[in-house]
């Protein structure tokens, strides 16, 4: 499976854009302009690789709170994400009702997400089954961390999907921590993909810092789903290079050396090197991309900062149809 050059370029820009936006969000939070940020830094390679492997015109995406780069690559705009961060009017996910990074976009088939970890997994199976029942050629991809795999929702969802051959991809973004809990306290195995064995579905582990590898693995899973082969569990291994959220202090539970070591293996550094080595990127075009990303993010920030707060009726409606 060869990845078209154009796709590689687009992917690179999306990763740069996501990182630029994410960095800005940290700054806004540290400046006190917004109350909270939860970051996807380090996981952009997984998310952009996976997004491009799907059919973004038809498929469903059920993201989780780090899927910043995923929803951008899927079609959400920096403005929309900034509106969510500032919790202003026009936030397409929740109209300011939910915390930032609780994505959702009806038109783009990005399903509304809550905070309780892993609840989206069986729901994604139901979404996929609906398409299957109607005979539609649509695949659902659902994301979560390795911590989420400990929950009953993961188990019941994957088992259901395997028994009913639902066209769904379970994408575990294994960043080795669940807040302060290292993987070793979360599970007694090395590879999350081994969990697929117990469900009778294929499981693969891929280097999540390698955009192209993720792209290929997800593409393969999507093709399997489209051709009636049912679900796949894809584990993409990476590392959370930032604290869990703006409320966390990760120095309490891990060394700076560990973090620095992993930062060097990050998806941007790696993808950039790959592109340079294959003469697909040069300094000039990279600078142009960076400038473009900054401009987009600047514009989005200003837009959201000046956006009004949501109308007060958003505090209490709509709870039922017709509200």
């Amino acid at each position, binding site marked *: 499976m060869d990845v078209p050059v154009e796709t590689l370029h687009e992917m690179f820009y999306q990763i740069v854009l996501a990182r630029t936006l994410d960095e800005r969000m940290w700054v806004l939070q540290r400046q006190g302009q917004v109350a909270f940020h939860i970051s996807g830094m380090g996981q952009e390679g997984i998310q952009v690789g996976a997004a491009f492997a799907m059919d973004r015109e038809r498929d469903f995406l059920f993201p989780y709170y780090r899927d910043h780069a995923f929803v951008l690559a899927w079609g959400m705009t920096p403005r929309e994400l900034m509106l969510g961060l500032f919790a202003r009017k026009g936030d397409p996910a929740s*109209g300011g009702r939910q915390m930032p990074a609780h994505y*959702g976009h009806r038109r783009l088939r990005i399903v509304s997400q*809550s905070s309780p970890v892993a609840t989206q997994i069986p729901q994604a199976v139901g979404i996929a089954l609906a398409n299957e029942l*109607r005979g539609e050629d649509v695949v659902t991809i659902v994301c979560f961390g390795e911590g989420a795999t400990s929950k009953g929702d993961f188990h019941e969802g994957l088992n259901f999907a395997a028994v009913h051959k639902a066209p769904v991809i379970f994408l575990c973004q294994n960043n080795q921590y669940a807040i302060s809990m290292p993987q070793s306290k979360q599970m007694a195995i090395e590879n999350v993909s081994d969990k697929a064995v117990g469900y009778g579905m294929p499981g693969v582990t891929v280097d999540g810092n390698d955009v192209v590898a993720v792209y290929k693995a997800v593409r393969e899973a999507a093709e399997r789903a489209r051709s009636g082969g049912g679900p796949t569990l894809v584990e993409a291994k990476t590392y959370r290079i930032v604290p869990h959220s703006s409320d966390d202090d990760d120095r309490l539970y891990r060394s700076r050396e560990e973090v620095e070591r992993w930062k060097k293996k990050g998806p941007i550094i790696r993808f950039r090197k790959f592109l340079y080595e294959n003469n697909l990127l040069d300094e000039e075009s990279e600078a142009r991309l960076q400038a473009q990303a900054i401009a987009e993010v600047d514009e989005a920030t200003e837009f959201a900062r000046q956006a009004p707060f949501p109308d007060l009726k958003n505090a209490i409606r709509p709870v039922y149809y017709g509200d």
Partner: protein
Amino acid sequence: MAEKMLLQAIHDGLQEEMARDDRVLVLGEDVGRRGGVFKVTEGLIDEFGEDRCMDTPLAELGIIGVAIGLALNGMRPVAEIQFADFIHPAFDQIVNEAARFRFRSAGTWTCPMVIRAPYGGGIGGGLYHSQSVEAFFAHVPGLKIVVPGTPYDAKGLLKAAIRDEDPVLYFEHKKTYRLVKGEVPDEDYVVPIGVAAVCREGTDLVAFSYGLMLQETLRAAEEVAAEQISVEVVDLRTLRPLDKEMILEAVRKTGKAMIVHEDNKIMGIGAEIAAVISEEAFDYLDGPIVRVAPPEAPAVPYSPPLQEYFMPNAAKIAKAMRRLAAY
């Protein structure tokens, strides 16, 4: 019109809705070949196939989670929980998820789905096959809750629930399945959600009830009628949203109110009704608001004399009616 058992009315309601709208499907444990452990879904697999009468793994969280996904993506799932006692593993999916999609997504993602669950005691089910669980869910904005007391309402409320744009919990009392019979029209009809029904007119006091206890309350009202105590009996039918207007009107008319349910008293539906009355019809009250409910033990015990002792019944209700009427 034909006389039907409540069980049959539910079955027919399901069958008709599935025939009317191919987005409707049922899913749950043993709903296929077995027709459900109570036979409510009997024959549906033959008529609609395995896809629309879907046997699922033994996993209530999964059943509800999957049903939510189906609803989000254009289907109208009717999920069966084999016994209401087993709905708790799905509590998170119902309360945190199904109930909140509309609100949390600014109305862009919605969950039109029905959860059917047989509930209630008096059938030798012991602690874990007898529970009343409606009170937990009645606290949750975003959910609707119905409990049919007659075959007519069973079918009409089920159709209304399936056609509703929001998640509806539909609790059916196991003991009423074959015990309660009544006329059910052949033509299509719905019983609107949110509307209570006056089952018996009366002037001295009003008793609110639902499910199996409605039968016992009606028998008690009959019993005390012989003693010149005139009891109005209201079938709540919907527990969320409560039909506040009808409740308050009945209290304004009679001046005395009683609530009868099989669920535990503390924080049961009776608490909310008493609170609404004492907040909004205080000036009309001529006596304390009385709740008739089982003792504060965790669900119905199995051994027949224990079960008998535990369950409210017409005699216990009549006693409370006499006392309140005399107040």
